[in-house]
């Protein structure tokens, strides 16, 4: 990518220099077609950065929006602040990339999706797993009907976040959008939403603390989807047998099985499928390394770069990857999270009947003897 002159670059402010914001800022700042700036109310890190980098650092979000001619903002503040900050940017005509979870109220998420769409602004949410080659491959395989009617899904995420009672941050407070459900479970849920939409019912939800006082450290739930699939969600962020967060999805259908994690997509097809000439009958594997292209800048995995690359490309009218990751899609995940919370609190509506499917033939028994 050649660097366009300053006047032709896209001006993006990264707001919130926490755990995610700092690495987002590094990737945005390294993008050759972008002029980046940062905004954070302050603290040790902001002071150090201000003294050591060329990009401008602002302290006041509203003042920055009022004074700077920005094309876009990237919001990486604590989840509770997303709603008002996203709205303020949209109202000023800025394109918005927002960290996940989008908002803590799915109705607000829908409203913001309406607003962004009405204004014709680019809107994306940081569900980076959608940009992992192996999970993109799952979307391609499922939409081509690779494994027939999907009946059985296992959606898992494990990792070492809360391993002991610890100091309080917004991530450990329920009202701020903390906890394993918002932080970890949102990822596999968002992938399920991509493949199957919003569930029609949720049951058996368990949100339990292990070491935390105010939030859940493990989440289990059963989700039923309109296509007839039932998904078991199993998420735990107090599992240090994992070096870092690991998300795994397993699908069983009438024509086979798919397993995917960040590294690979393992496929078993009972019979080859005409629409997928590259996938043989029987067992096969595709590695993320062969499914992914190099981004302009690599910091912590291609997917983090690609989600920002898509955002910039869409703003500039260039061709993005086509991975759907907008406010509307994220609102489905916020809705799903709300369904799990309602179910756990005993507030869920009785499950609606799932679409009727032909009855499965009974196993033939040899004169009833075997």
């Amino acid at each position, binding site marked *: 990518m050649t660097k366009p002159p300053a006047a032709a670059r896209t001006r993006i402010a990264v707001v919130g220099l926490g755990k995610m914001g700092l690495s987002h800022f590094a990737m945005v700042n*390294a993008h050759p077609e972008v002029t980046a700036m940062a905004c954070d109310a302050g603290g040790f890190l902001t002071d150090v950065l201000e003294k050591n980098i060329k990009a401008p650092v602002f302290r006041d979000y509203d003042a920055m929006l009022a004074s700077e001619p920005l094309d876009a903002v990237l919001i990486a503040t604590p989840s509770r602040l997303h709603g008002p900050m996203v709205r303020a940017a949209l109202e000023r005509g800025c394109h918005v990339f927002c960290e996940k979870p989008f908002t803590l109220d799915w109705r607000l998420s829908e409203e913001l999706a309406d607003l962004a769409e009405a204004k014709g602004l680019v809107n994306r949410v940081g569900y980076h797993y959608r940009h992992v080659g192996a999970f993109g491959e799952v979307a391609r395989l499922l939409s081509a009907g690779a494994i027939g009617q999907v009946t059985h899904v296992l959606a898992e995420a494990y990792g070492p976040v809360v391993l002991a009672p610890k100091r309080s941050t917004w991530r450990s407070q329920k009202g701020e959008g903390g906890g394993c459900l918002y932080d970890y479970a949102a990822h596999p849920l968002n992938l399920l939403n991509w493949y199957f939409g919003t569930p029609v019912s949720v049951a058996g939800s368990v949100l339990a603390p292990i070491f935390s006082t105010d939030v859940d450290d493990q989440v289990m739930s059963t989700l039923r989807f309109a296509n007839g699939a039932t998904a078991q969600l199993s998420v735990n962020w107090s599992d240090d047998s994992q070096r870092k967060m690991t998300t795994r999805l397993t699908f069983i259908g009438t024509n086979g099985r798919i397993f995917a994690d960040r590294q690979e997509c393992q496929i078993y097809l009972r019979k080859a499928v005409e629409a997928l000439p590259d996938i043989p009958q029987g067992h096969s594997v595709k590695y993320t390394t062969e499914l992914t292209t190099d981004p302009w800048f690599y910091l912590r995995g291609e997917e983090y770069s690609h989600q920002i690359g898509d955002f910039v490309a869409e703003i500039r009218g260039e061709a993005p990857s086509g991975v759907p990751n907008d406010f509307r899609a994220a609102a489905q995940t916020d809705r799903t999270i709300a369904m799990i919370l309602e179910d756990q609190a005993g507030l869920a509506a009785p499950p609606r009947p799932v679409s009727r499917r032909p009855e499965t033939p009974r196993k033939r028994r040899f004169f009833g003897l075997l």
Partner: protein
Amino acid sequence: MTHQPETHQMDRLLFGDNQFFGVNHMSEDKARAQMMRFRDTGAIMEVLDQAYDAGIRTFMCTTHERIREVADVVRANPARYPDFLFYPCMPYAHKYANAMTDLGLVGAISSFLPEGGKMAAMLSGGMALAQKDAGSIARLLIDAEMKMFAGLKTPVIFLQNVFTDLMLGLGFTGAFRIFHDHVREKYGAEPGYITMNLPALYKALSEEGIENPVICANINKIGFRMCGGHQAYLDVLQNGRLQAVAMSVYASGAIPAEEAISWVTALPNLKSIVFGASSRGNILSTRDLVAQHWKHP
């Protein structure tokens, strides 16, 4: 007071440590199997001994806690390992990431410093602004990471790629100068930089006045994880002045071994290849391929 270290000639083959700590770019299952196999430091030493006895005497390793035990073994047996060299790579990112989640940024930094309590008080206290000197904090952190190698030979000290590339992305390139000067002055060693973005890093180091740097990056025939583009890498190697260390030369197994080695060893400015292996057979075959194909001096 900059004293120029004696020019250290890097060996052509360096032994890496990813295989010991469950880093596998292809498969979680393989990574877990490796963690099970190398749970004892004895199992790590067995492979390191095979490499050492095959003439591969440089161990390029992260400052992982387990490496402390490897360093202890080498220190305790000077007769067995007279020529053993460590190339430490710091910081070990997961250690800091986990500490940051538990303790916050200032708490994490403080927890790795010898006089942690004092520093924490300074950082959060009234005298904060004057003390927010990134350089002095960085120097203390480098010293803390180097403690496990006391008394051992560490002629090259690397900055890990997550940290290098974070600083590169932020435009905080002064950090490279701080690292460079401290490694030279205090350890008489050559500073090295691991990156996934070689062309951009080479440019940033030049702009910081860091000449002929040691840069370790993915360099392979198919361009796997060579960000900035295969051609841009080749341009730097052909026209730049650097001491390149190639990693991922096999591109996680996507390139046949002989083809990978014959391609990479023909590149100008390439000084070393870092590779990982868990068996004597693989160590010897890489060694022999390099000996066979690496013609230029």
